[in-house]
């Protein structure tokens, strides 16, 4: 067999192997001014009806052209399928999360990583305000803000108002390792289940004990801010 025939067969085989089957990959062109890595993201189109799958693919391609990470969007779509959400709701969630990713990139800057944008968009969707994201970016350089974003999302989810969460984060997290932030999250989470107001109480105690740099040499609080007891009732009540 001549060499040209081998080349043609090789090209045919390559074309067939790259043809989209049930499980496709969304081609995501590299954004010119973004550090976000855009490898092909697996997208199992068989979990959706054809119309929804086509619409989702269009959304993913649009997001990729805008330099937004596609993987978080694919995950939201797959999650909606796993939760048996309607096609309309899945598309709405993906669109809204894409908008949140865009807003997060505007707030955190173009140098943000995919993980940061995902976490920031999740925080925005949870009720964290723009000012808080800006404060986190000031506190953590690009690529290192995921933990802070996750912590602030958790605090807001547990009933801590966004301004107080921001103040606590900046008080205990500036120039301190992420473990301090995780200690704050764990303390608030532990106390939040004990009743209304306990999350804020724990937050304030933790900030008081860890708020000044050097007070604990950058290590998490050795003991919970609120030990296994109820807060002392003020005199006269």
């Amino acid at each position, binding site marked *: 067999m001549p060499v040209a025939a081998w080349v043609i067969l090789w090209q045919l085989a390559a074309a067939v192997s790259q043809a989209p089957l049930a499980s496709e990959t969304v081609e995501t062109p590299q954004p010119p001014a973004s550090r976000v890595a855009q490898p092909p993201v697996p997208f199992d189109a068989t979990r959706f009806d054809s119309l929804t799958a086509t619409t989702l693919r269009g959304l993913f391609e649009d997001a990729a052209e805008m330099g937004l990470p596609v993987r978080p969007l694919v995950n939201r779509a797959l*999650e909606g399928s796993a939760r048996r959400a309607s096609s309309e709701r899945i598309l709405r969630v993906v669109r809204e999360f894409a908008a949140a990713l865009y807003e997060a990139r505007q707030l955190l800057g173009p140098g943000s990583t995919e993980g940061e944008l995902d976490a920031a968009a999740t925080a925005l969707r949870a009720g964290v305000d723009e000012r808080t994201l800006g404060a986190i970016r000031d506190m953590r350089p690009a690529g290192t803000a*995921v*933990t802070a974003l996750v912590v602030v999302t958790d605090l807001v989810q547990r009933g801590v108002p966004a301004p107080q969460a921001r103040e606590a984060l900046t008080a205990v997290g500036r120039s301190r390792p992420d473990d301090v932030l995780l200690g704050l999250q764990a303390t608030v989470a532990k106390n939040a289940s004990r009743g209304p107001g306990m999350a804020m109480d724990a937050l304030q105690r933790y900030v008081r004990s860890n708020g000044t740099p050097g007070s604990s040499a950058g290590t998490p609080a050795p003991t919970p801010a609120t030990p296994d007891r109820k807060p002392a009732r003020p005199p006269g009540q």
Partner: protein
Amino acid sequence: MLLGSAGFLIPTVDGLVAQGRPDAPIAPVGIIGGVTDAATLSVLGLAAASDGQGAPLSARNDLWIGITQPVARVGRVRLTALASGTAGGRDPVGRGGAMHGLATLRARARFGNQHVWSAVSYGRGSLDGDVGTSPMDAMGLMGASAAIPFGRAGADTTISRRVDLGQVGRAEAGLLTTQGGVVLAFGVAMERATRVTTQTLRIETPEAGVDPMFDGAARIVTNRTIRSLQRRDVATGLASAGFQTGATQWLVSVTAPVATWISSDALGPNPRPVPTVASVAMVRPITGWLSLVGAAASNTATMDGGSLREAVRERADRAFSPVVAVGLRLSRLPWRTSDGTPNGILAFETRTLGAVDAMSVEALSTEPAGASGSSAVDTLRVVLLIDAPRAESVELMGDATSWSVTPMRRTTSGRWRAELKLSPGMHRVIVRADGGKWTAPPGLPVGNDDYGEPVGLIQIRGRL
């Protein structure tokens, strides 16, 4: 896990139910009596429609109360105490009621994906058969000893009251396994039931020299009490299959007596062997079932050494009569409110949810991503450990599993383990125990998932 389709056999706690009471069990196997290792309190109302032929088997309206309470765990074996009681309004014997109670100690063990169970039960039951004045009813219940001849010079006899006190002891064992998402259960039970029947006869004898046809006012009335002991031994087999279609859970079950031995006497001249019951039940979201009750296996029954083939032949026309019933069960767990178990379950769930008590994340090592095609990002082998000691299965799904349900593996220490490869960044994960509600793993930061449910957030810090 769909539902524990084994556990109790049909709770025929009323002793020698088959002889005097044609109240064939109408509920599917496993519906009544929970296979659960959690503490539950259930109240169940049973109301069955008539079969249209006036057959008394469907003439029952019962209130059922059941309690389960885990008592101990020895290695793999979990011991659970179960108690149930039934109060019936109308009974075929008469206008009186019926009450039954059953206490069970059950042992369950798990070997991989296989579950075995064994249980011993003891129960007591009573029928308060206030027969009333219907002479036909009374005659239907009379035995030879009560059949005092009628006649102008003889006596007129009716049964004024009948009380049955019975007790039952049962031992059962079975296997429960899951194949392709279908929960299959097989079991056998050996049961001995005894019943003491006390009949009070009202015997009216005409006064000497007075013709009762013309002077009914002058009679001598006597009461006579007859007691009789009856016994029934029955070996029963059960098979059931539970599966799920969409959000609906189904249970198909068959309970059939393998062999029945009846020791009867004159007070129970028309024995009714335990019937075969085939049922199709929709367990959730709305509970209802269709049972076919018949006497297919009755030919194996014997009474006093003789076959009951002829005795049951006359009932062949009513074999496999359909019984449709709709039930409602409310389970409350007032003493366990913080473990994720629902406080109220409006369904015939025979299992309650296990609890995910805590979750921890352990990083094992980093390795190149390789398959992901991104050489700039490392992946981290992460082990998720969940404390759910009461759960029998734990599953997770999330970003790392492309939101596909992934079962976790039970370790020798009793924790549940799954190993994932995660890249630096944020990853969302949710878990569930025993097929219950998906929830954010305790101990992890919580985020909103845009679909109205919380998710756990795992952050992986890696080099950039």
